[in-house]
């Protein structure tokens, strides 16, 4: 199978978020960047497992500047065969999706895999967009996938449970927890990654219709009000009269 995995670069979850220029820009000072966990742990690893079981190739793609190469190399170290970077500023979800769809259109992949969302802007948009641009089915929040021939059986997370769907390739899939188990790159993988191809391609023209214009921090929480563990009537009273939530 010919598989494409979309990988993005995000600040590490534990990063402290701050802004500069009065909230205009993310303060990148001291920000530790990682490969988006859903892309790395679930989408990429499941793609590698499919390739290991049935043969084929795994290509990873990123839309971003040269500074992203480090994160892309990690994907190669984990086991992807080759990488493509579309050299452009990932301005909006639709801009990114158009870049990836344009590349995928040329290559005829059997499956495009993504993470369920990027943990920075929590968009959950790019996968659905690529599917529409390629006129393919989209299965979101996949937590399990089995393949037999070119037919896939997929469990996807929905509110309060799961839905099981069956469909034939080609399609686009977004990965949530459970789809695979995280793999740590080993020394051999890291050495081999240096020799694997990382192609850089120019972006296709696409307008910028949705842009961030500013950031703010959420209002600071007032200090916790401690309630005597012996007096739960007091907690109930506070929840009813003060917080007005029960």
């Amino acid at each position, binding site marked *: 199978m010919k598989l494409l995995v979309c990988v993005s670069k995000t600040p590490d979850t534990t990063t402290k*978020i701050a802004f500069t220029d009065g909230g205009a820009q993310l303060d990148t000072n001291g920000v530790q960047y990682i490969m988006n966990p859903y892309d790395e742990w679930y989408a990429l690893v499941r793609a590698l497992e499919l390739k290991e079981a049935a043969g084929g190739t795994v290509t990873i793609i990123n839309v971003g500047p040269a500074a992203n190469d480090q994160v892309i190399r990690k994907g190669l170290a984990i086991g992807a065969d080759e990488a493509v970077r579309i050299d452009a500023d990932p301005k909006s*979800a639709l801009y990114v999706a158009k870049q990836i769809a344009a590349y995928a259109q040329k290559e005829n992949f059997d499956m495009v895999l993504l993470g369920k969302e990027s943990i920075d802007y929590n968009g959950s948009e790019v996968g659905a967009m690529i*599917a529409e641009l390629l006129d393919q089915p989209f299965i979101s929040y996949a937590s399990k996938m089995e393949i037999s021939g070119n037919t896939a059986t997929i469990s996807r997370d929905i509110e*309060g449970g799961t839905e099981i*769907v069956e469909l034939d390739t080609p399609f686009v899939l977004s990965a949530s927890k459970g789809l695979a188990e995280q793999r740590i790159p080993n020394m051999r993988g890291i050495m081999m990654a240096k020799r694997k191809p990382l192609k850089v391609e120019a972006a296709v023209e696409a307008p910028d219709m949705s842009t961030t214009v500013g950031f703010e*921090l*959420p209002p600071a929480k007032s200090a916790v009000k401690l309630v005597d563990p012996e007096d*739960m009537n007091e907690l109930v009273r506070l929840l009813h009269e003060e*917080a007005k939530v029960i």
Partner: protein
Amino acid sequence: MVLVFAESQKGEFKKAAMEAVYYGHKTAEILGTECAALTLGPVNNAAVLGQYGANKVYNVGDDSLAQFDSQVYTAVIAAVADQIGANVVIVSHSSTGKSLQGRLAAKLDAGSVSGVNHLPTNDGSFKVKKNVFSGKAIAEYEISSDKKVLSLMGNSLKPEAVGSDATVESLAVEVPASRIKVKEVNTVEGTVPLPEAELVVSAGRGMKGPENWGIIDEMAEILNATTACSRPVADVGWRPHHEHVGQTGIAIRPNLYIAVGISGAIQHLAGVNSSKTIVVINKDPEAPFFKAADYGVVGDLFDVVPRLNEALRNFKNS
């Protein structure tokens, strides 16, 4: 015109549908236009959407739409948007809505923002806000294109009755054949799904084992709340996976989140820190969760929770 897709399940509207329609109504007011709602598949009582602000309700009742396929739904919603001249399309930020929102933006070639939680402003340019960095910041977006697609985060605003029943018009739209087969839908019946729940009772590793969950279920029952859990608890199978909240689980924003025996790791907080009121019960006064809490009880949960359940029951009975 603003078009809202009102999600239904087995013919009944979800709470998120009322929120989306009300948000659509308010957005239409801001833009000086009208709001139409669209329902897909067989639904009961579509007219009720008028009460939450839909000036008109459209239905495409094709039976095949009882099964969700983002590709088919997108084709139908976009066709309706074209037919009625809608340039703003709003869906819920649910598993269904999230699978549609990006598709619709691509299909309509529209600027889009997902998971908005404030009404837009329109002083010369159209701007909306959403939480980013797992609730650690709020970003404001400007959409510059004429066509816009938004998804609305659950529990972002309280829908109010602003009108009366609307007229429902059936539309004949070509429904393309689906390329997927939905084989099974396994959901728990009778409880409010987590993303829609206003009251959530959640527990973690402090519970020691699944056999101790009776006191948590009891609290949920008294409050009519939905239960949730931390990730390790779902990982070891003490609780079902769909209850797991946090960065890798689901993000929720209920009115009340009660956390029992959960330490409050940053990845857990990422999914719950937008809750309006947070109560933390933990025996460790240094547990990081207390920093994010509104009310805290430092004590052994096996003493505190039964006591709280009794107090809640007395409150409910009074």
